C-alpha cells in the first residue's frame, strides 16, 4: 500500500473518523514527505510546519470532543500562493509581494477552515498566475514529479506537483486560461475549474477578473467533489459569485451513470495535437461509447479566435488589476526614488518579472484611447460568440470531451518563446472565455511515462453532472493509483 500521503480524502476521512489515524500523524506524514521530496520538486514557496501541526492538534481535539467541523476535518490541504490566508505569506510568486503577509482570509480559506481542513503551505506558481509552466515564478521553478527535468505545467504548477509528489492530500489552484487543468494533466492528477461565479474570488489575487476561478486539485474525482462542495456557493463579498443551490457533489457521483450525450469538438483535434495524447483521448471516447453514451462530433467554429481573444481580455484586466502594486502601501518599494512617479517606475521595474511586464504592457495598449474599440471591445464581442458556440453545442450534448493539453509536460527551459508557451492553453482557454466548468482527469501515459489528461467540459453550474461523467471514467481506470517513482529516482 502506498504511503499515507498518497491516500484519498475519502479513505483518510474514514480512518480519522475511526480513530485509526490522527490528524497530527497524517500531517506529520505529509510534512515528512514534503521534506524528503522538496529538494527535487520545489512545489512550495513556504510552509509553516508548526502552524500546520498546531491546526492538526486542534482538529484532533475537536474530534475527541465530538465537535468535528465538516467534510475536510483533519485533511492537510495546500493553497496556491495567490489565495489569502490570514497571517501567512501571500506572494503570487512575485518579488513584488515577497515579504507580504495577508491580514485576512480569502472566502475559500474561511470555508476550508470551517470544513476542518488543515491549511498547509504556500504553493508555487507562475508570477501572478501568468504562465503555463511555473517557470515564471520569481523564486524558483517547480519540477514535474514524473520527470524532474520537466515542468509541472502552470500556472498552478506547485499545486499539481505537490499533490502528485504526495506533499499534500489535496490542493487549491486558480484557473484563468487553463491554470488548473493543464498542470493537472501534466502531473497526472484531477483538476477542476468550476463555472465562473460558483466559487468566490474574494481573497484571490486577481489576474483577469472575468476569467479567474478557484478550483480543486485532487487524487480522484470523488475528492475533487468533496473539495468543491466545501468551497462553492454565493459570497456576499464577491459581486460576481452566483446565488445557486450547491448540491452534494460527492453524493451525486454515484447518482447517475449515464448514458450521456457527449460531444467531440472537431476543432480540438487538429494540427499540433500530440498523437499519443490523441490516441489516449480516443480510447477514453471509446470507453464512453462502451458505457452506452451517444458520442457525436460538434463544432465550436470560433475556436480559432480563442487565444487572441484571451490575450486581449486577460491582459487588459491584468494591466488594471496589477496597478495596485505600486510600492506605496505594501509590497516591494524601490529605494532612492526621487519622486512618486520615479517610485512607481522603479518599484514596478524591480518588482515584476518579464512575463508580467509583457502582459501589463499588452493590456495597457489594448485599452488605450483609440485602440479600445479595435481590441478590447472587439474581443468582448468575439467572447460572446465563443460562448454561444458552446451553448449551441449543449443543445445537442451534455458535455464535451477534448484533450486537456495538446502536448505532455515539456522540458524546463524548453519554451523560451512566449507564443509557443501560450499555445499550450489552446484547449483550455475557451472554457474560461465561456465561463464554463472543465475538469481534467488522468487518461493514460505517454511511452515516456508522462501523464495525459482528458478534459471534460460541462454546462454552466452543472458540476454535479460533469463530475459524474468524469467519475464514470475514473472508476473503471487505474491511472489515479499510479504514482511517480520519486523515492527510487533520487
Amino acid at each position, binding site marked *: 500500500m502506498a504511503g499515507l500521503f498518497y491516500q484519498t480524502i475519502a479513505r483518510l476521512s474514514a480512518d480519522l473518523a475511526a480513530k485509526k489515524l490522527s490528524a497530527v500523524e497524517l500531517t506529520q506524514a505529509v510534512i515528512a514527505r514534503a521534506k524528503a521530496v522538496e529538494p527535487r520538486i520545489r512545489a512550495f514557496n513556504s510552509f509553516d510546519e508548526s502552524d500546520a501541526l498546531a491546526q492538526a492538534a486542534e482538529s484532533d481535539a475537536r474530534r475527541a470532543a465530538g465537535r468535528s467541523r465538516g467534510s475536510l476535518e483533519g485533511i492537510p490541504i495546500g493553497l496556491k500562493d495567490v489565495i489569502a490566508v490570514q497571517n501567512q505569506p501571500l506572494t503570487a510568486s512575485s518579488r513584488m509581494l515577497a515579504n507580504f503577509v495577508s491580514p485576512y482570509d480569502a472566502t475559500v480559506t474561511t470555508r476550508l477552515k470551517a470544513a476542518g481542513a488543515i491549511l498547509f503551505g504556500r504553493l508555487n506558481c507562475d508570477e501572478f498566475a501568468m504562465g503555463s509552466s511555473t517557470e515564471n515564478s520569481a523564486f524558483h521553478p517547480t519540477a514535474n514529479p514524473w520527470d524532474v527535468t520537466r515542468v509541472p505545467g502552470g500556472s498552478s504548477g506547485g499545486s499539481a506537483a505537490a499533490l502528485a509528489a504526495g506533499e499534500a492530500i489535496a490542493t487549491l489552484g486558480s484557473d484563468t486560461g487553463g491554470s488548473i487543468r493543464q498542470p493537472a494533466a501534466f502531473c497526472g492528477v484531477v483538476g477542476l475549474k468550476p463555472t465562473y461565479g460558483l466559487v468566490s474570488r474574494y481573497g484571490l*489575487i486577481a489576474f483577469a477578473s472575468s476569467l479567474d476561478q478557484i478550483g480543486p486539485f485532487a487524487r480522484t474525482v470523488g475528492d475533487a467533489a468533496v473539495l468543491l462542495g466545501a468551497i462553492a456557493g454565493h459570497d456576499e463579498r464577491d*459581486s460576481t459569485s452566483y446565488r445557486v443551490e450547491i448540491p452534494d457533489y460527492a453524493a451525486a457521483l454515484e447518482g447517475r451513470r449515464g448514458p450521456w450525450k457527449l460531444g467531440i469538438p472537431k476543432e480540438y483535434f487538429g494540427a499540433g495535437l500530440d498523437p499519443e495524447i490523441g490516441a489516449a483521448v480516443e480510447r477514453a471516447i471509446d470507453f464512453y461509447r462502451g458505457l452506452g453514451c451517444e458520442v457525436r462530433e460538434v463544432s465550436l467554429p470560433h475556436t480559432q479566435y480563442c487565444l487572441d481573444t484571451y490575450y486581449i481580455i486577460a491582459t487588459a484586466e491584468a494591466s488594471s488589476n496589477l496597478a495596485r502594486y505600486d510600492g506605496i502601501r505594501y509590497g516591494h518599494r524601490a529605494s532612492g526614488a526621487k519622486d512618486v512617479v520615479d517610485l512607481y517606475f522603479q518599484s514596478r521595474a524591480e518588482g515584476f518579472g518579464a512575463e508580467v511586464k509583457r502582459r501589463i504592457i499588452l493590456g495597457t495598449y489594448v*485599452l488605450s484611447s483609440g485602440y479600445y474599440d479595435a481590441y478590447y471591445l472587439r474581443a468582448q464581442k468575439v467572447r460572446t460568440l465563443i460562448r454561444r458556440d458552446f451553448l449551441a453545442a449543449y443543445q445537442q450534448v451534455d458535455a464535451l470531451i477534448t484533450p486537456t493539453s495538446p502536448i505532455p509536460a515539456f522540458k524546463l527551459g524548453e519554451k523560451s518563446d512566449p507564443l509557443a508557451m501560450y499555445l499550450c492553453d489552446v484547449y483550455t482557454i475557451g472554457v474560461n472565455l465561456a465561463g464554463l466548468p472543465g475538469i481534467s482527469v488522468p487518461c493514460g501515459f505517454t511511452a515516456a511515462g508522462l501523464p495525459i489528461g482528458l478534459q471534460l467540459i460541462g454546462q454552466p453550474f452543472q458540476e454535479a453532472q460533469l463530475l459524474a461523467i468524469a467519475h464514470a471514467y475514473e472508476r473503471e481506470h487505474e491511472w489515479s493509483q499510479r504514482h511517480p517513482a520519486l523515492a527510487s529516482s533520487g
Partner: protein
Amino acid sequence: MASNGMVRDYPLLATRYSLLSMNYEAVIGLEVHVQVKTRSKIFTRVATGYGLEPNTLTDPVVLALPGALPVMNRAALDAIIKAGLLLGCRIAPVCKWDRKNYFYPDSPKNYQISQYDQPLCLGGEVEIELPGPARNLMGEHKRIPLTRIHLEEDVGKLNHGAADSLIDYNRAGTPLMEIVSEPALHSAEEAFAYLTSLRATMIYGGISDCDMEKGQLRCDANISVRPVGESKLGTKVELKNLNSISFVRDGIAHEIKRQIAVLERGGTIVQETRDYDGMTGTSQSLRTKEEAHDYRYFPDPDLMPVVVDEEWKNRIRAGCPELPFDKQRRFIAQYRLPYTLTSVLVWDRELADYFEAAVKAAGEDRAQSVGNWIANDLLRELGKAAPAAVSAGAEGGLSDPHGRFRIPPAQLAELVRLVEAGTVLMNAAKEIFVEMFATGEAPGVIADRRGLKVAAGDAGELEQWCRDAIAGNAKALAEFKAGKDSAINAFKGPVMKAAKGRANPKLVDETLRRLLAGN
C-alpha cells in the same frame, strides 16, 4: 440658513463684460462633486466619516490589498437616483461601472471605480434665481441644463510634509456624485446661483450635507470667453480648488477677467488647468492639455451591472421632497406670503416644514404672522443659541422633526392666537417668545406665571361696557349720586358678564368711578 442670504447678497448681475475694444461673453460649465451621505462606503462595509484618526476607516477593500473585491452599496445608488429624479434627469435602466485608470497615491487601486459611457443620470436641469431689481423683489429664474450625473468613489487625502507625504485613506471609497452642467452659465453670479440652488437641492433631498469645509461639495469650473455674437466656443480653461461658494464666484470672475485681458493684449488662451487661490485671489497653471491622461476606461469586471427598474425608481420618487423654488411659489400662492418672507423660509427644509406645521396649527389666515415670528424671532434666537445647543436640538430631531427649533409648532400657533385675541400685547408676546425658546414652556403658562396676560376689556371695550352698565341701571345711578357708595357694585355684575368674567376688577372699579364722576 446661510443659503438664504447668499441668493441676494451679491452685486449687480453682469453677463456681459466690456473691456476696451470689444464686448465679451463668458461661457461656463461646472463639474460639481457631491459626497453622498451613506453610513458605509460605496464598495465595502467600512463606515464613512470625517475628522477621525487617519486610516481608521479602512479594510482590505479600501486599502486595495491583494485579492480584495468591491461590492456595491445600494444606498449610494438610491441617493443618485434621488438626485436624478429631483433634477429631472433621465435615469439609466442599468447601472454600469467602469474603471478609470491612473496612478496617484491617493487612489489605492490606482484606478477609480466610476461611470464612463453610461452615467446613471442624463439630462436634467438646475433652476436658479438671479438677483432681483430690489431685495424684496423676486429675480429672474433660469433653468441650467445638466449633461449628466454619475457615481464614483472618492479618493484618499495627501498631507505633504517637508520631508515626506502622508496618506489618509479614510475618505477613500466615500460615494461621490459628479454633476456636470452644460456650458450654459454666463457669469460668476450665475455660477454662484447655480451652486446655491444645487446645494440646497442636495440638502433638501437628504443626499448630502454639502459642507464645503469638509469637502462634501467640491467644484471645478470650465471657463471660456468669446466676443459677443460669436457662436464658436473659445478655448476653455479648467479652474480647480474652488473650495467655497464665494471662491467659486470670485475665481470665475477672476478667470474671465484674466482671459479677456489676454485676448485684449492680442494673446491666445492656452487650454490648461489652473489652480485658484481664494486667499490671494490669484491663479496659476497646474498642467496643460498635452499632459492630459489617457484613463483607459473599461467596464469593471468585478461589479455586475445593476438593473434600475420602475419599482425602484417609484420607491425613491415617493421619498422626493418638494424643491425650494417650487415651495416658494406655493407659499406665495397658498399663504399669500411676501417674496422676502418666503425666501427666508424655503431654503431650509426643516424650517419650511416647521413653518407649515405651525400654520396648520394656527390656521392659514395667520400664515404671515407665523412666518414673521419665524423670520424675526425664531431665527434671531437660534442665531444667539450656541451652535452646540442648536445641533443638540437637531439630534433630538430624529424623533421630533421640529426639535431643532425648540418651540413646538403648536405653541407658536398658540402665541400667534393669543396676540391676535389681544390676550397678550405684542411687547409681552416678544418676552414670552424668548422664554418659550429658552424653557420650552407653553405661552399661556408663561403669560399666567408672569402676569403678562391682558385682562379682557383692556383693548377699549371696558369703557363701553361700563357706560352700558351705568345707562342700564338708573336706580343704582341715583343711589350712587345720592352718596351710597356701595351702589357702584350694581354696575359691576353686567360689566363682568360682558367681559365673560375676565375683566380686571380693579380696572372696572376705576373706570366706573371715572365715568360716574364725569356724569
